[in-house]
């Protein structure tokens, strides 16, 4: 955190000075470790075992927050009899469908009911709740003694019972005593009076089990009562100014603004069906239709009517995974013709840069928008394969348009930070030359396209032609008004175009339009709430009057949990939001994340519908049952509980199960994407992990061109332990070549004890640390670490595995700079005899187009 979010770390240091204990778990000793109370070196890719160990410790030593767990989590809920754990099936949960290579989650459900998830794979929900309570969607049977063998608590307990300190030591390389110190510290700092917070970044997400990493932390935090309470939570530290915003208002294939799912060809055949499958009969998602209708009204205006299904049919449909790497593979196979890169440099920043370049060479046209000519803009004349003469610029047919971009100081707009806070930045000066904002580019592209298609009667074009696109422009460059766009995002009453104040005012009858329901209120009362700048020192520490946090300016989600079931603060020290009995209203330091006047004592009746199903002590309002899920009965592609699997390319065999890797992981079985042996690959004995440095920004587009930053970290380097340096003859400051089956790169050597070798099962495992900021352009240059990494991903979110893989290192500069994509196999193939990633049943996973093998296709059922 000190490395990549120094100013965020300001508050960690402030807490530390007030007595907080800072624990840093990381394969490397980083700048965060330098000031931590406790640094725990862990084998990259083994965090679930570590967190699982903590979960076990909390349960075994009965340190969980019983009252919280009983009331606010699904611990007492009973799971159906068909459920079988990985402990029973050697690493698989029940429901693995051999034919389709994916899970059928039916056996994971609560006994007697089917409940849709608040996020994730909503198609798991059949849309046909068979609850005895009618439309209620939640568990049917509970055991509040937590003793029933099929209650969630007992299932969780059994599932993690093997995650002992001894196992943690074996799997993670973390000495028992160190692990127990962490466990004790976490327990000692949880409960009524104290809370523990977890902070993570892509070190948790970029794994083939990334989502389950976060789930592990969620389970632990729910058990300890650390969710929805001040000083608690699980904090994602995100790396781009508006990466949260680009998830909320997604430039992502699978969702629409406000986490409404993109329609899927198989299920969402009509608007009614879409609402039925993706909404929920209970919990806050029961409001789904209002948000969906308002979005379509914002997009299609008067053309969207109830009769035409709000023009739902003008939305394109998904037919599977269309995520980034899937797109790139399709591109490499010639299926994608045109590509827009807006402020992103994938040939450095994404996995397997050579495959990206191969894909881009197959394009008809490419549009790049950036500040400078990045590696992605110049892939046709500046790349390892060009240097090697394997590809000549003359042979690259792609037409490239480079548009210089305006900076944040040259345009108005809002960023959403990692805490969901929208902050407006004002334009300071005009952009120079032809530099323009993306707002300008997109608006004028749309305007021109509308002109080009004017008069078309083709059904394919009606979406574009009816799209509302009337934003006021100003100035010589005809810059559209960002504030007008924010007004549309906020939403308005269709009749008088007055801004809507909050999302509870949205309607499903077409009388309101709203571009993103969770941002509703950001322009309440006709005031740009995101531009509020009341100085922090002039308001209480939650600072509700600085910018605007979604939803409804709630700074902490699920903060109802900061009060006990009766609505009283758990403790005076941890007072945050509580029920005011006199005013019959929730109140506190933050905007309560609850129905404002729903008393703690409220219990839904049998025929309660929609949000009325949420009891007064159901803090987790987005969940169908209002509870924190220790166990996820639906929504996940790879199981209801986190389980330790080894990375796609590991150094050791899975200690726990015959199933080596996440059975649900996405693979790209292509000749240009070879994998190493699942473990013990003699050609690639070292464990590689990648990371960022304080001094650079991601793929370097915003840092490698600046002298002030470049001089601080001027060259690509690798971090190796003194022992590895000795073994391989690496000298500090000299060169090393790092190789995987995908390619080879060179780097300066930094010999340091900060990246220790780990002892796993009596074997010494050497780790290689690689920052990934450099490329062949910019003021400072170096090889890109991502050239080494394969396409392999988590099945829930299609995020690649780049934090743990295997590779080899040798002293000296690379002689060849080969890439498997253009140079053919770099190493002779190995028979993987006795090294199977999967149990036989998983090994039969079908392979789709472009070599994609995934567990989330809709083709099976």
């Amino acid at each position: 955190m000190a490395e990549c979010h120094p100013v965020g770390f300001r508050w960690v240091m402030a807490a530390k000075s007030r007595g907080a204990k800072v624990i840093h778990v990381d394969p490397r000793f980083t700048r965060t470790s330098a000031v931590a109370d406790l640094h725990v070196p862990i084998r990259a890719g083994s965090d679930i075992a570590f967190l699982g160990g903590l979960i076990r410790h909390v349960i075994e030593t009965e340190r969980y927050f019983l009252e919280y767990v009983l009331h606010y989590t699904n611990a007492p809920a009973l799971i159906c009899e068909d459920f079988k754990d990985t402990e029973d099936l050697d690493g698989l949960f029940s429901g693995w469908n051999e034919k389709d290579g994916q899970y059928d989650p039916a056996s994971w459900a609560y006994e007697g009911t089917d409940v849709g998830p608040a996020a994730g794979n909503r198609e798991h929900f059949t849309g046909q709740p068979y609850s005895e309570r009618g439309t209620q969607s939640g568990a049917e049977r509970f055991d509040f003694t937590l003793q029933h063998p099929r209650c969630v608590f007992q299932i969780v307990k059994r599932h993690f019972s093997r995650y002992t300190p001894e196992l943690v030591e074996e799997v993670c390389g973390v000495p028992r005593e160190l692990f127990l110190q962490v466990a004790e510290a976490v327990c000692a700092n949880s409960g009524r009076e104290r809370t523990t917070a977890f902070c993570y970044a892509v070190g948790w997400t970029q794994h083939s089990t990334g989502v389950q990493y976060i789930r592990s932390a969620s389970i632990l935090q729910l058990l300890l009562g650390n969710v929805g309470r001040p000083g608690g939570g699980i904090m994602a530290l995100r790396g781009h100014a508006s990466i949260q915003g680009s998830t909320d208002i997604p430039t992502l294939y699978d969702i629409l603004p406000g986490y409404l799912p993109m329609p899927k060809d198989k299920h969402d055949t009509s608007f009614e069906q879409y609402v039925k499958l993706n909404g929920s009969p209970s919990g806050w998602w029961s409001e789904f239709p209002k948000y969906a209708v308002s979005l379509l009204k914002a997009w299609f205006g008067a053309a969207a009517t109830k009769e035409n299904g709000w023009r739902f049919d003008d939305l394109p449909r998904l037919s599977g995974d269309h995520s980034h790497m899937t797109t790139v593979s399709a591109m490499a196979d010639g299926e994608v013709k045109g590509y827009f890169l807006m402020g992103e440099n994938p040939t450095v920043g994404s996995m397997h840069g050579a495959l990206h370049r191969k894909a881009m060479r197959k394009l008809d046209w490419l549009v790049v928008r950036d500040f400078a000519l990045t590696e992605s803009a110049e892939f046709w004349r500046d790349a390892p394969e060009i240097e090697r003469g394997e590809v000549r610029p003359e042979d690259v047919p792609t037409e490239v348009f480079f548009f210089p971009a305006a900076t944040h100081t040259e345009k108005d707009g809002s960023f959403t930070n990692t805490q969901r806070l929208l902050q407006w930045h004002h334009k300071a000066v005009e952009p120079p030359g032809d530099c323009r904002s993306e707002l300008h580019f997109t608006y004028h592209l749309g305007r021109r396209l509308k002109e080009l298609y004017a008069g078309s009667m083709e059904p394919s074009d009606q979406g574009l032609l009816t799209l509302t696109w009337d934003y006021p422009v100003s100035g010589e460059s005809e810059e559209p008004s960002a504030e007008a766009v924010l007004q549309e995002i906020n939403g308005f009453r269709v009749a008088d175009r007055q801004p809507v104040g909050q999302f509870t005012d949205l309607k499903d009858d077409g009388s309101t339009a709203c571009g993103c329901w969770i941002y509703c209120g950001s322009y309440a009362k006709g005031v740009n709430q995101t531009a509020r700048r009341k100085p922090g020192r002039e308001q209480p520490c939650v600072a509700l009057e600085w910018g605007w946090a979604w939803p409804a300016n709630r700074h902490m989600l699920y903060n109802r949990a900061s009060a006990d079931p009766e609505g009283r603060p758990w403790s005076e020290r941890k007072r945050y939001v509580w029920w005011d009995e006199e005013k019959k209203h929730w109140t506190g330091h933050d905007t309560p994340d609850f129905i404002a006047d729903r008393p703690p004592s409220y219990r839904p009746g049998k025929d309660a519908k929609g949000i009325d199903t949420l009891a007064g002590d159901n803090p987790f309002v987005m969940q169908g049952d209002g509870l924190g899920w220790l166990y996820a009965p639906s929504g996940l592609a790879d199981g209801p509980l986190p389980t330790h699997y080894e990375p796609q390319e590991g150094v050791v065999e899975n200690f726990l199960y015959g199933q080596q890797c996440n059975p649900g992981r996405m693979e790209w079985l292509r000749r240009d994407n070879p994998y190493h042996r699942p473990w013990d690959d003699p050609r690639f004995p070292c464990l590689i992990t990648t990371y960022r440095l304080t001094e650079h920004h991601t793929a370097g587009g915003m840092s490698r061109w600046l002298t002030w930053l470049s001089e601080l970290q001027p060259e690509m380097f690798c971090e190796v332990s003194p022992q590895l340096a000795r073994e391989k003859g690496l000298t500090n400051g000299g060169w090393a070549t790092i190789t995987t089956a995908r390619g080879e790169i060179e780097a300066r050597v930094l010999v340091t004890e900060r990246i220790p070798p780990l002892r796993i099962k009596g074997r010494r495992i050497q780790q290689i640390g690689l920052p990934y900021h450099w490329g062949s352009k910019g003021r400072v240059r170096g090889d890109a670490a991502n050239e080494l990494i394969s396409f392999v991903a988590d099945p829930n979110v299609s995020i690649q595995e780049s934090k743990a893989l295997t590779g080899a290192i040798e002293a000296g500069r690379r002689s060849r700079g080969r890439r498997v994509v253009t140079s053919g196999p770099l190493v002779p193939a190995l028979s993987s005899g006795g090294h199977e990633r999967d149990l036989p049943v998983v090994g039969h996973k079908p392979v789709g187009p472009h070599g994609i093998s995934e567990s989330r296709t809709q083709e099976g059922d």
Partner: protein
Amino acid sequence: MGFLSSLSRWPVLQQIRKGDVHALRETARSPRSEQLRPRTEGADRVVQSICPYCAVGCGQLVYVKDEKILDIEGDPDSPISEGCLCPKGAATFQLVTGSHRVQRVLHRRPHGTEWEEVPLDWALEQVAQRVKRTREETWEETTKEGRRVHRTMGIAHLGGATLDNEENYLIKKLFTALGIVQVENQARI
């Protein structure tokens, strides 16, 4: 007389006059030093902004004079950052004013070996036409299985995590209306 007055400003004479034996302080001070002020005092306006690097969202103050940026530093009013910035945030001035920024639209023809400068309008029109052509060539109303998909898989997009919400909104809105589903950004990476 100029000479005399400049002679009278000769510090050594002042030193003697004042009996300042060491001449370590004011005596040795130059007129420039006396008049020194922070350059931000001359700013025409101070614009409140947000750091464009990571997602902590530190406040920035952008000082502008004569329509040029003089200085960018932390905004002490921000409850998030209280005026602090990390090295990247502190380098924002160079990011936005640096000579690395390309200021003209560039075009690389198919099989070309060089960039060519082209007018912005022309390039925008060309892109619009490419989108139209590709979209028409690759339009997919139904899948092989006969399911209605109403889309093009011939066009894709990547990027957005560094862009404004409003920009992402327009991108998602336009591209979805064009039937483009392969819209992705860094959040996936």
